[in-house]
Each structure stands twice: as C-alpha cells, then as structure tokens.
C-alpha cells in the first residue's frame, strides 16, 4: 500500500493494458472461478456440518462471532498489543514496534547487520510487500528469495503479487515454464508436477543456506504470544524453523485474544480463501528454540506494523481492519476478474484494496480505486467477516466529493442534474428538455429501433461502446392521465 500512485502509469492506462491482455484475463478468470466454486462447496459443507453439530457454527454464526472478536480486539487494541508483546517476550522472543514502512526495514537491516547475514528466505507475507522489504534488503546486498511458489514466480518475473493469496494468479503454465527456464537454462515441460518439482529443488538449497527467515502471520494469539501461519507448501514451516533467525512482520490487525478465537477465525480463513477446511500446513509458533530442543531458530523477532492502521480506529472505516486477507472478495469481483491485481496499482488489489489503500495512505492517492466498482455487492456477500465493502466504497466517494476530488465535468453535470430533480416541476421540465437534447443524436437500428449515438462530453463514455436509448416523447408522467381515465 506504500506503492506510489504517482510513479506508475495512470489508472486508465493500467486498465487498458490489462483489458488488452487475453492471457492475463483468461488465467485470472479460470483461477478466480475455481476458488469461487471451491469456497461455495466448502461453505455448504460447513453449514451441513454445523447442522449435525460437527462444526463450531454455520457460516453466518461464525461470521457474527468473527465480527465480535475483531471489534472487541480493535476496541481494546492497546491492551492486546501489550499482552501479546509480554507473552512473546516471556516465550523468549523479541518485539519491535514499527510505525511505518521505514521502521520495519530499519529493524530487519539492523538484525541482518548484527548477524552478518547474507541471504534471506521468505515465506509469503503481504505486510513485507506493503513495506517493500525485498527491495530494501537487496539494496543492502542481501540475497532475498521468496519460497512460496507463487511469490517465487513473480519474483522471477520482477512483478508484485496480483492477488493476496494466489500471487501468480495471472500467469499461465507456459509463462511459468519460461520463467523457470531462465533459472535452469533448459527447456521445461509445462505440466504442474515438473514445474513444482523444479521450484522445490531450487528452493531446498536456499532454505538450507539462509541466514534469516522472514514471514508474516495470519493470526497472532495475544494470550499465548503465538504466531499462526497457514500455508499449503510447507515453505512457511521451513522458513520459520531452518534459518537461525526468524523475523515475523505482522500488521496490528492480525491480533486476536485467545485460542478459542483462533478456532473461529481458522474455521473461516482457509474455507474463504481456497475452499479448504484447513490448509495443508498450519504452524503455531510460540517462541524460538528452547534450551535442549534440537531445532528451531535461535532468535525470534516479531515486528508489529501500524503504517496507518490505527488512523482507522473510531472512524467509519474501522471495519476495514477486520479483514483477514482471504482474498474471497477478489475471487468474486467482476471488476477484479477483468483487470487483474496490477491495474489497481496498490499492494492489496480488489474490493478490500480499493477501500484500504485510500484510507491508509491518504485520500490524495488512489482516487480512482473507489470509483472502479459497479457496487454490485458480491464482495460483501462473501466476506467472512462481513465487511460492508460496497458501502465503504460509496462513503469514500462521498469523502472525495467533500474534498473536491471529483472531475469538474462530473461535478457540474451532477450538481445541475440533482438540483433539478429535487423539484418535481424541474424534473418534468428536464424530461422534456432531455427529449429534445437527444434528437440530434437519434439513429435507428436496422430493425427500426431508435437509439442515441455519439453523445458529447461525459455521456460519450457510454456511446463509445453501447447504444443509448432516447428519451421518450411521452414519459410515464405524461401517460398517467390516460391511465387514470382508463380505470
């Protein structure tokens, strides 16, 4: 989210590029649809399990409980942060507080310097993407290798994640084989087993030689000081146990009070993200290697990251901090599936990215993102913590209008239009005017249907790709008198 919207092509250009890329859109829709279908099946299964008393609750029950947990934690954030920090220290770990992106980078650099580190292995972490940790460490001469398969692919492609759970969602197998060829120097077939076996072989060596392991966390349990990590490849376990030093970068909103709360959140996260009941690997890390233990890191560092998050507390956007980063909103978003993650430009794309990017990084940035939604509400419907994403997008538009961040043409058109429509007589006058204004643009389809084309100004956005209906000479208001007589 610290990405700078001024340092990239504008939104329209990014969208145009994405819409012109059939490979990207094909790959994106295929995977998004698969994730959506699996999620639906997992949730139906959850509800039927709940009916037999085999689950903690139905989706609706769990969503309500998750919202309570999140609201409670955020309203007592200082308490739970202190509790978590005390527990992590009692377990033998070290706690760092990072107000912004630069703080995270400084902490990690300092640890790397002290340890004389040369190489870093990473498990998937959006928080480190947010603070651009890789680039900063590489500038210091460290070798940084992403160990999540998707992250590894986009690292080779010099890209950023296009999705928060499936970073390489936009890549085809052919494109991935080509990227791996750049590493191996030989042509690889495009079947999944060969490609994953290749990545596994390369990454095993990197795990064994790494001086630092950097991860994020899906949840941090305050009462026990436990870091929780969901992965499907086992790379999270290797990253956090093989290197002598483990560093976890954690957004403050990842805190939950207790292990009971974890059971609720864990019932929701994998089901929402990938349609799994539980991920293949689930790690609960409570402290570094203890005396007498044969393995585990010598040092464990937890960096709690604010980076604008606490500014949301007590505001109308506080609910956005409930997000557990499952990506379900992206998988169902009709905008995301057409333009992909990179067009958004922000670290986190999709509906949740369009809400949090402006509120975390200032309304001056990312003014396009809240506009890039048809407000269909599919995101809210699937959100496991019930964030009212489309309402927040509307509210953001409201704040942007208040700040005068609206194109002049749009502001004038809407002001005149709405001022007239508040007065019934002016509304009807505008109807009549509308009829005459559209006459010069009227055309007919081959089968005789009238439509308007080549409309000027803002309306040209419509007629560039779609026929527009003409205003009827007799509106319904005009016709009512006849209908009334017909009683």
């Amino acid at each position, binding site marked *: 989210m610290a990405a700078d919207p001024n340092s990239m092509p504008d939104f329209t250009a990014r969208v145009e590029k994405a*819409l012109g890329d059939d490979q990207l859109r094909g790959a994106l829709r295929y995977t998004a649809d698969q994730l959506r279908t699996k999620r639906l099946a997992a949730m139906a299964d959850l509800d039927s399990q709940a009916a037999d008393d085999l689950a903690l609750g139905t989706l609706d029950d769990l969503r309500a409980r998750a919202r309570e947990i999140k609201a409670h934690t955020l309203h007592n954030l200082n308490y739970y942060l202190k509790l978590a920090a005390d527990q992590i220290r009692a377990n033998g770990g070290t706690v760092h507080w990072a107000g912004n992106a630069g703080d995270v980078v400084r902490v990690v650099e300092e640890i790397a310097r002290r340890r004389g580190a040369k190489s870093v292995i990473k498990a998937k972490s959006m928080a480190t993407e947010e603070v651009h940790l890789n680039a900063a460490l590489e500038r210091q001469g460290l070798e940084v290798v992403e160990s999540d398969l998707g992250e590894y692919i986009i690292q080779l492609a010099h890209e950023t994640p296009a999705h928060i759970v499936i970073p390489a969602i936009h890549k085809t197998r052919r494109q991935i084989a080509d990227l791996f060829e750049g590493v191996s120097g030989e042509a690889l077939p495009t079947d999944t087993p060969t490609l994953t076996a290749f990545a596994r072989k390369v990454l095993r060596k990197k795990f064994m030689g790494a001086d630092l392991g950097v991860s994020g966390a899906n949840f941090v349990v305050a009462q026990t000081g436990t870091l929780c990590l969901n992965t499907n490849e086992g790379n999270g376990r290797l990253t956090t146990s093989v290197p002598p030093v483990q560093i976890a970068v954690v957004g403050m909103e990842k805190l939950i009070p207790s292990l009971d709360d974890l059971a609720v959140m864990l019932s929701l996260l994998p089901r929402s993200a990938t349609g799994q009941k539980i991920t293949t690997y689930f790690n609960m890390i409570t402290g570094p290697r203890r005396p007498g233990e044969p393995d585990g890191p010598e040092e464990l560092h937890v960096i709690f990251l604010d980076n604008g998050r606490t500014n949301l507390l007590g505001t109308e956007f506080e609910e956005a901090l409930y997000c557990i980063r499952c990506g379900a909103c992206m998988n*169902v978003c*009709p*905008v995301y599936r057409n333009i992909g993650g990179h067009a958004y430009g922000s670290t986190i794309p999709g509906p949740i990215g369009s809400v949090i990017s402006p509120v975390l990084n200032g309304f001056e940035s990312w003014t396009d993102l809240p506009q890039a939604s048809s407000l269909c*509400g599919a995101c809210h*419907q699937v959100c496991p913590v019930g964030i009212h994403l489309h309402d927040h997008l509307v509210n953001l538009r409201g704040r942007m209008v208040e700040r005068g961040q609206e194109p002049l043409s749009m502001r004038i058109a809407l002001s005149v239009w709405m001022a007239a*429509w508040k007065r019934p007589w002016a509304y009807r006058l505008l109807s009549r005017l509308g009829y005459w204004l559209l006459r010069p643009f009227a055309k007919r389809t081959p089968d005789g249907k009238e439509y308007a084309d080549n409309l000027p100004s803002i309306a040209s956005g419509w007629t560039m790709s*779609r026929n*527009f209906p003409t205003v009827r000479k007799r509106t319904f208001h005009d016709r*009512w008198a006849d209908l009334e007589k017909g009683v």
Partner: protein
Amino acid sequence: MRVSLFITCLADHFYPEVGEAVVHLLRRHGVQVDFPSGQTCCGQPAWNTGHQEDARDLARNYLTTFASSEYIVMPSGSCAGHVRYFYPQMFNEDKVLYREACAVADRTYEFSEFMVKVLGVRDLGARYKARAVFHNNCHMQRELGVIDEPLELLRHVRDLELVENPRPDLCCGFGGAFSVKMPEISTAMADEKLGTFSPLQPDLLVSCDGGCLMHMGGRAERTGMKLKTMHLAELLWEGVQNNGR
C-alpha cells in the same frame, strides 16, 4: 388494497410501457393504483457518486411523497434496494427521519416481490413464446434478497422456455455512473456477462431493472448480438394480452 406506483426515473424517461404494464397487472389483481405526482428519483445516482447531501434531499422528497401510501411498488430492484437498504442508514443520526425512513422502507416493494409475497400470485395467466434467460440484478438479489420471485412468475408463463442463468451472481457492469466514468471496465463486464448467455442461445433477456437492460441491450445492439431485452412486467402484460384474457 391501494398501491402507489413509484415509476423510477429510468422507466419514466426510457421505458414508460413498463410502468403501464405494472399498472395494468396490479389492477387485474384488484389493486387500486395511484401515482403521486411529486415523485422524481430515489436518489441512488447521487448517493453512489458520493453526493450524499443531494441524495438525502431526494430521499426526503420520496419520504414526503409516499408518507401516506399503503404500499409503494416500483419496477426496479435497484431503486427498491436503495430505499430499503440505504434510506435508514442515511438518516441514522436523525431519530425522526430514521423512523420515517424505516417505516417507508418497510412498505416499499419491487414489482415481482410484491406480486409474489404480498399478492400471493404466481400465475398471472400469461402466454409468451420465447427462449428466455433471466438476469438477477445485483441490488435486488443482495440488498433486497429477492431471487426466486421473478423466476417463479416466469415459470408460470405458458410457451416460455426459461433457460438457467449460468452465473446469476455476476454483475452486468452497469453500476450507474460507473458505466460512463469507467466505460472500458464496464463494457468488458457487459461482454463477459453476455458471453455467459451465448452458449444457451436465448432470444430474450428478461430482468427487473431498466439499468441492466439498458446496459446489456445497448451492448448487444452495438455488437450485433441477437438478443431482445424486456422488463419482466412488460413480458407478463404482453403475455396476458397474448393469452386473450
């Protein structure tokens, strides 16, 4: 029973026949219909573009206009969704207006919802020959929770071959001002949506919203796709007349 018709700005200007159809169909079922002349727009365009004060003014006009109505029925799931879902939220800091908004919202219905839930009719006695697909508009299914009512009405139309919409969850890309502010994305969404219909080869697209129909119909016309668009009420009324009842 007395119903006040809220015509909605889109139907008023572009699809007045839809309003006529609603009036005829309601009357056929013994409902007295009135049309308060002070009505304009529900205010959704203002609300969704961030002009929240304008939207509140338009909502106040609606609250005043329909204050004494027994039921308010409109041929749009999107506008009904706006009234029911957003009006109370808009006035949550003003107790009096909040109560008024809740009361009016409770009496506000989308057309098919009213027919099925309030009047309890499913078979309107219509006959219409077509291979049709129904588009569930987003606000109707998500804000109003109205999903099966229009399908129920369509299933009872004689000679109508209703094919299943493969992705009823997918938005057509209209989104009001979104369609002109972000025309490229909006059009891509329309193409994807229309593309999901193509394998089914329907000749008719039915919906309960002028906006979606205008958008998909306008795109289909432009690309030469043979797909007629029709509002549910219009289909039902034509169907009733076809059946000679």
